């Protein structure tokens, strides 16, 4: 084995597999599994991230492992793109592992060792996806990833809902995987050589590149949750234990992004502008759809899941723009957009896992997932609440945190769009920018709802008074992720410089040199056109806040008196008078009514125990999935008619088949 980062990555990968196996061997020993195995797994994650950082700057390393099919051994390759996503996986994975060490307790449905096994296989297969350099090992890793995460989703398999969610997840993942498989079938160009090197070299003629791209979009889109293949996401994420949801949302969705980038920018040698238009439109639709649905959710993990759909939409939209730029040879702009895409992927991994883990802690402390039964947890769980606040602000895209940086870059890319040959695309771009801005603003709405209802206000249920804060290991994980959000937000120039090799590789140009005017100032083209320095903004806001406080204390005073809330003088105040999740989402439900399939249950005026309920369902179920299911059922019934038990009829089939074939041959 050649030394260097690849060796380190492989070591981490094997370590994960070994940990998983150990967990399986000692499945029932909770303390061993949680206090020993998970932290060691976290260490492996850190090693992986470090190796990724080293590999970003280094030339690509390749390795052939004599496994797999006889003519197709496992090709592994560590290049800049893989390295970037490995950093993401390693860093976020490490944090989630540490958190998990404190999270998994006994008396959960599945033995802890089994969870440990699936968890680490999941991690290892994601790493392998990123390393894969031929279609076979890619697919093996890809499906292992789906499978192990399926088992994580169905940890509590006794609940029928969760089984249903798991089934839906695995089904869509599998159909998507077949799409990817067919995509590789196109890419190999009939050569029978499935290594990525051969695919890079293959020159596809005619429509084949477009077919490959569309198949990739379909296949990876199913995993990423692009409309209309998103339906599994809001089901599976809430069903899984929180660390698993975090891992799926933060990292697994990114492997789909990785795959899309790998296929469209690495394996396909030229891009067509209309691919970009498709990706852009789909991405925007996904983003808007996701955020609007997130706004009306009442389950905190479902809300976050829809928010993941939104973020994936933003990323895909960025990919679309990159394709448009690249196809017109504007490599510098493509590099900027690509930077935004990668940056947002990284950011989303950090803040979304932070939030999912926070919901995990809340879930543990309160046994409650429904927003309507939470509230006021900032007093009971200060650690979780304050760290979640960082995540909330970051995901809302507020300066100076990380979410803002990537949105800023992406918006800049839209603004810099030069006039393109297709006037239709020219018109699309501003509309896309507007839609993106709308999605970002709605995200803030959603996150205020999430944070305000879970952590602020008064506890909506008496039981919440017993909630306890996260344990020490959990806190470490959360702090790590929150720190990541802050650092990624404050030092974009350094991060973008790190991304340069990836840009160089994918779009043939670097953004870093242009983007970084100096170490403080982020300026994509030049400082006159646009610049942003989060550190300065942070320091200035901080200084003003500090100065104001000091001055107020200096010239006036800092006295505080505690009293009951005033509330316009209303005498009776109960926690139930606060907005519920439904209430908070109601304006959005009203404004975006066509988005939903609303089912309201209104009480009659004479109802003794009036009950009101409103459900916002996904149209796609009724437009796409149920019709497919019904069509399949109808086909099944039709084919069932063929087989109606009578032997004469069966003999007739044989006979007719024979006659028809004889006629055919003649």
């Amino acid at each position, binding site marked *: 084995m050649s030394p260097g980062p690849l060796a380190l990555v492989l070591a981490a990968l094997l370590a994960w597999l070994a940990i998983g196996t150990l967990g399986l061997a000692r499945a029932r020993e909770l303390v061993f599994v949680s206090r020993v195995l998970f932290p060691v797994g976290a260490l492996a994650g850190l090693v992986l991230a470090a190796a990724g950082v080293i590999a970003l700057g280094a030339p690509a390393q390749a390795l052939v492992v004599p496994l797999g099919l006889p003519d197709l051994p496992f090709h592994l390759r560590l290049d800049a793109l893989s390295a970037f996503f490995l950093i993401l996986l390693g860093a976020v994975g490490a944090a989630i592992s540490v958190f998990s060490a404190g999270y998994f307790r006994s008396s959960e449905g599945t033995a802890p060792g089994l969870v440990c096994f699936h968890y680490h296989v999941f991690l290892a297969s994601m790493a392998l996806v990123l390393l894969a350099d031929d279609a076979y090992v890619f697919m093996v890793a890809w499906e292992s990833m789906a499978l192990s995460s399926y088992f994580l989703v169905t940890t509590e398999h006794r609940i029928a809902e969760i089984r249903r969610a798991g089934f839906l997840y695995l089904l869509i993942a599998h159909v998507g995987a077949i799409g990817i498989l067919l995509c590789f079938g196109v890419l190999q160009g009939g050569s029978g050589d499935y290594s990525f090197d051969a695919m890079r070299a293959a020159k596809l003629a005619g429509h084949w590149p477009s077919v490959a791209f569309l198949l990739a979009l379909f296949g990876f889109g199913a995993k990423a949750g692009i409309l209309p293949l998103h339906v599994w996401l809001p089901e599976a994420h809430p069903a899984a234990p929180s660390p698993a949801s975090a891992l799926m949302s933060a990292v697994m969705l990114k492997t789909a992004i990785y795959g899309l980038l790998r296929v469209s920018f690495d394996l396909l040698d030229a891009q067509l502008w209309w691919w970009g238009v498709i990706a852009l439109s789909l991405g925007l639709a996904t983003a808007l759809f996701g955020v609007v649905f997130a706004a009306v959710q009442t389950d905190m993990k479902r809300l976050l899941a829809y928010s993941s759909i939104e973020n994936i939409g933003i990323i895909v939209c960025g990919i679309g723009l990159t394709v448009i730029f690249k196809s017109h040879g504007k490599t510098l702009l493509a590099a900027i957009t690509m930077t935004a895409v990668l940056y947002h992927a990284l950011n989303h991994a950090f803040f979304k896992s932070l939030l999912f883990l926070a919901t995990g802690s809340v879930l543990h402390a309160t046994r409650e997932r429904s927003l309507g039964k939470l509230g006021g947890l900032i007093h009971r769980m200060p650690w979780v609440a304050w760290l979640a606040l960082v995540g909330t602000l970051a995901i809302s895209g507020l300066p100076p945190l990380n979410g803002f940086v990537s949105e800023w870059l992406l918006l800049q890319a839209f603004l810099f769009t030069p006039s393109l040959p297709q006037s239709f695309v020219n018109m699309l771009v501003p509309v896309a920018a507007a839609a993106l801005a709308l999605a970002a603003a709605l995200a803030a709405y959603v996150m205020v709802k999430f944070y305000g209802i879970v952590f602020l206000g008064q506890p909506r249920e008496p039981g919440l008074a017993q909630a306890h804060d996260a344990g020490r290991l959990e806190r470490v994980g959360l702090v790590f992720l929150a720190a990541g959000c802050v650092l990624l937000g404050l030092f974009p120039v350094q991060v973008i410089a790190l991304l340069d090799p990836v840009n160089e590789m994918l779009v043939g140009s670097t953004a870093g040199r242009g983007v970084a005017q100096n170490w403080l100032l982020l300026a994509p083209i030049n400082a006159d056109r646009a610049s942003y320095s989060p550190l300065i903004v942070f320091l200035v806001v901080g200084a003003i806040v500090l100065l104001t406080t000091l001055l107020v204390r200096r010239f006036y005073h800092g006295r505080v008196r505690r009293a009951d809330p005033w509330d316009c003088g209303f005498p009776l105040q109960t926690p139930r008078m606060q907005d519920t999740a439904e209430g908070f989402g109601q304006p959005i439900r009203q404004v975006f009514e066509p988005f939903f399939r609303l089912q309201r249950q209104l009480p009659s005026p004479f109802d003794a125990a009036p009950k009101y309920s409103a459900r916002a369902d996904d149209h796609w179920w009724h437009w796409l999935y149920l019709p497919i299911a019904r069509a399949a059922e109808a086909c099944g019934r039709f084919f069932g*008619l*063929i087989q109606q038990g*009578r032997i*004469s009829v069966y003999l007739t089939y044989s*006979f007719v088949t024979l006659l028809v074939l*004889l006629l055919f041959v003649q």
Partner: protein
Amino acid sequence: MAAGIPFYAQLINLFAAVLLLISFAMLAQRRVLSLIDLFAAQGLALALSTAVVGWGTGQSHLYWSAGVTLTLKVFLLPFLLYRLIRRLDVKWDVEPLINIPTTMLVGIVLVVFAFNLAAPISNLSSTVTRSTLGIAIASVMLSFLMMITRRKAIPQVIGFLAMENGLFFAATSATYGMPMVVELGIALDVLVGMLILGVFFFQIREQFDSLDLKHLEQLREDE
């Protein structure tokens, strides 16, 4: 019958015609016992034609083959079938699923089809008996049709055996017979198959009190 072909070939053609005729007769026959008789007659025609081919072409192993056919299909199987019917006490007439005129019409279409099918092949053959291939195919198809149209177990089996006869005829007429080991194997299979079927009849009767195939229509997908 064109002139100039040897006498034995004319004989074979005659037997072929008889075979086809018997096939039609079986298609039209309602009575089980008569079906067995017809089956035996078909076997006899087959055995004779095999022997004639052997005589005409000097292929001595065809005599063996004819002997096996005679023993098996003229004596042994009809005998077994007779015994079965006596033991099972099922001498009823059989009413086919499709009425007999229709069946006959379909049968004629099949014969035309079979002849058409065989025509290009027959011209390729070097054997003098080549024109009988079409008849062989036709009788196979007619037997197939018979199996489809019968609603009782025993006539269906007789159809199956008649189909085997057609195949044998094809083997002897078109190619002067298959290698001996194969023929023996086939014969053994037919015999064992018949024995197993016999066992089956008893089991079915035991279960359903009848050999009507309508009882055997429970496993299905269309509910």
